[in-house]
């Protein structure tokens, strides 16, 4: 995000129209009076704390922040935020938030959704929100399972998953949410993990600053129905091999002391992992989140092994500038007034041909 900064909302392009808070805020200001009802140990608690802890630094008037959610465990999120909020219906949050954000540019609009909500029943709305680039921040809590309906496989579950609805193993190939988002023309795509508060907060910061739709996939542990799904990324020893932390402008290296790196195969253009040596060191890919072409970001999104999660990139995979839908919608209204003058009801009614009946 070379062109933007997170030092105060007034300077964040995505939030220039959102009024600032009059006084300094704290995490407490964003906690509602409602008792949080997720299962003890659920990853959602960590995400809620990270969001509540991060919002004060944006310094926005909290009455101008809205959280919109669908249905599912994660979608209870708005009830716990002391902002405006809507807990809507299954899968439709991106559509509802699109109407809100495109009619109210003075709001900071956030969508909270899950893998079933966003990628199964609401898949259509998600991809269209991404291609339109409405000024929305979508937090996709991915736990690779249906929690609220008690444990059926989800569109991100691994093939062969044994659940109540798939006693002999699930048959359908999962979505890769990052690949999907990049394919849907998303202008901002990132991945983070519920348990890594620091990384999660940094990604939220960058998403908030992004003008347009930001999709943040958050790997989130469901300790009841899919416990340990992301253990490979969380266990200190395993994580060294499994997690690839992306930093814009930095070589993509991971493993003990950065001993491994990502290189491009000159023949196929595909990406692969190598042990870094003196000879190949210069070939290690430098991450460019702002690359105009989505090709490399897409290839990065395919690096992870879907079963072991080894070589899972986290961080901002893609962040590019595209026209923002609600800005353009507002611009068209202004242009219409410039071209035709402010609407005059009498002139509208009369249209072209009229006749007069005298009494």
């Amino acid at each position, binding site marked *: 995000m070379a062109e933007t900064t997170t030092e105060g909302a007034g300077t964040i392009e995505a939030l220039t129209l959102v009024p600032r808070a009059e006084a300094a805020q704290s995490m407490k200001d964003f906690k*509602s009076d409602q008792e949080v009802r997720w299962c003890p140990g659920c990853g959602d608690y960590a995400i809620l704390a990270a969001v509540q802890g991060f919002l004060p630094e944006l310094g926005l008037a909290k009455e101008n922040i809205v959280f919109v959610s669908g249905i599912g465990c994660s979608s209870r999120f708005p009830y716990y935020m002391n902002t405006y909020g809507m807990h809507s219906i299954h899968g439709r949050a991106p559509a*509802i938030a699109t*109407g809100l954000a495109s009619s109210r540019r003075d709001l900071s609009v956030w969508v909270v959704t899950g893998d079933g909500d966003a990628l199964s029943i609401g898949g259509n709305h998600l991809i269209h929100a991404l291609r339109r680039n409405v000024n929305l921040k979508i937090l996709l809590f991915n736990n690779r399972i249906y929690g609220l309906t008690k444990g059926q496989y989800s569109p991100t579950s691994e093939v062969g998953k044994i659940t109540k609805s798939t006693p002999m193993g699930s048959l359908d190939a999962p979505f890769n949410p990052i690949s999907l988002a990049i394919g849907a023309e998303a202008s901002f795509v990132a991945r983070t993990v519920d348990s890594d508060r620091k990384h999660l907060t940094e990604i939220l910061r960058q998403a908030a600053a992004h003008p347009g739709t930001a999709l943040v996939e958050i790997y989130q542990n469901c300790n009841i129905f899919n416990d340990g799904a992301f253990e490979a990324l969380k266990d200190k020893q395993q994580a060294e091999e499994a997690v690839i932390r992306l930093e814009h402008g930095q070589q993509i290296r991971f493993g003990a002391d950065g001993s491994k790196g990502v290189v491009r195969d000159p023949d196929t253009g595909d990406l692969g992992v190598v042990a870094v040596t003196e000879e190949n060191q210069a070939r290690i890919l430098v991450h460019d989140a702002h690359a105009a072409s989505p090709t490399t970001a897409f290839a990065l999104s395919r690096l992870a092994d879907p079963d072991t999660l080894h070589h899972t990139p986290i961080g901002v995979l893609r962040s590019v500038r595209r026209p923002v839908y609600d800005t353009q919608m507002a611009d068209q209204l202004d242009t219409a007034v410039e*071209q035709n003058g402010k609407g005059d009801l009498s002139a509208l009614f009369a249209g072209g041909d009229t006749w007069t009946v005298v009494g």
Partner: protein
Amino acid sequence: MTSQVSSPAEQADETVVGEQRKPAGAKDVRRIDRVIIRFAGDSGDGMQLTGDRFTSETASFGNDLSTLPNFPAEIRAPAGTLPGVSSFQLHFADHDILTPGDAPNVLVAMNPAALKANIADVPRGADIIVNTDEFTKRAMSKVGYPASPLEDGSLDGYSVHPVPLTTLTVEALKSFDLSRKEAERSKNMFALGLLSWMYHRPTEGTERFLASKFAKKPEIAAANIAAFRAGWNFGETTEDFAVSYEVAPAVSAFPPGVYRNISGNVALSYGLVAASRQADLPLYLGSYPITPASDILHELSRHKNFGVRTFQAEDEIAGIGAALGAAFGGSLAVTTTSGPGVALKSETIGLAVSMELPLLVIDIQRGGPSTGLPTKTEQADLLQAMFGRNGEAPVPVIAPSTPADCFDTAMEAARIALVYRTPVFVLSDGYLASGSEPWRIPEVDELPDLRVQFAQGPNHTLEDGSEVFWPYKRDPRTLARPWAVPGTPGLEHRIGGIEKQDGTGNISYDPANHDFMVRTRQAKIDNIDVPDLAVDDPTGSADTLVLGWGSTYGPITAAVRRLRTAGEHIAQAHLRHLNPFPHNLGAVLGRYEKVVVPEMNLGQLATLVRAKYLVDARSFTQVNGMPFKAEQLATALKEAIDG
């Protein structure tokens, strides 16, 4: 006959576009009080445009009029086939009329298919103008004519005018640099010119229209104007058309005022724009294209300078979702659709019921079930609008009765939605949507004030004395909850589809609370202030009441007039408000021995009034995709009176 057509070059040189043409006075002119014309041709023949232009000419002349466009769902069905026939019927008069007319006095048939598809509706004695060029063996056998109907005597009793429309048009355009195919395309304008001569229509508007429609293709504009004039001159000069007709302006039919012609969908669009102005709220339309509702999306998209936002969504669900999001943000929010789209929007309508936000759901009904008859009319979504949601989810329902009434109905829907914080259904239909009639243009200062007050601060005091905002604390009179829009400090709150505790709006699964909330939402809708139902019973001695709703108003009223002219006593009432019903409806129904309910469905309103008022209402129904004919209704009502 071709020799009688004057050279188009002369016309193009000597007359100015937009000049009024007048008959030279060499032929008989007869005054008649009304006429019904039907233009029929292939869906590619431009019959809708021809009808629209004739309508505009007629409107600007000051006749009362009513139109019925009728076209296939396919954009270009196979040429020359019965399913590909498109027609446009126009009824105009020197007095107040109510319907597009039962039976045409004049049929213009551009090909054998058009003749075959329409002849059954045309009574003997009527004029039939046929384009003889299209009556080839092949074209006739395609639609099952073994011999030419123009020659086998099957049209005996009709006044048939065989006109080689295509040849004459091509001949008239020979000086233009056009291919034969291109020249042939103007034959609808030739026909329009001929009919314009026959009925003394003003012509300058059509010439101006053609000049502006084809402004970027001056050659095509000039060719169409030349064809239009050639048709007019043909009527003036050929001996086959010995008489032309005058239908005087309908001066006494209309109260004083400024009028224009308007279709239902345009009137509805204007009503929405006006409601937004009168409510001082920005208009937000979330919609997905669907016949016959798309014209509202098109029309509203042209008026961005009124602050109108139109969002063409990825599907029906997103269309209403975006509208609901905008309603949460304080817009006057609308979604437009037809029956299949309503089915998809049902869950979101339920959410709007639960969140108690204002939202207009405009259903331009068409033939169903499923995809049904996309371009034909029907009234079969009434029970879907009433009950098509999970749980107890009452929604107010109102219906316009004529194309112009769509304007007032849109304003009324906005009033109910804004005052009572509820989604509101508007049930228009394909007949109202594309049909048109004169509309007295309202003065802006006559329009109702629809302004609302957003919540500004706390509305409740807790026992400890602290002031709080309760999103579900209701207005004691309307039972409406406060509308607190994001951006209002101190009123941050969360709403959703889960049952809410009365007052606080917090999630509540408490059994008694749910029972209370279900009953309260129902009571809010039941107690909506709607005007009493007016009954038209001039003698006060009728024992039969005909009760209608929606677009059947024209045909029912026309049938009632016929019966009264014939000395019958019958009372008429027409419902705009279908949920809640006018509070005097039960009393009205109780006053009559017999109640007849004509509907373009299988008796949906009849079911509702039978259930609610225990009256033995009789249904008279028709579901053929077309509006009722007045004659047929009059017969049915007569049977009821006598029965």
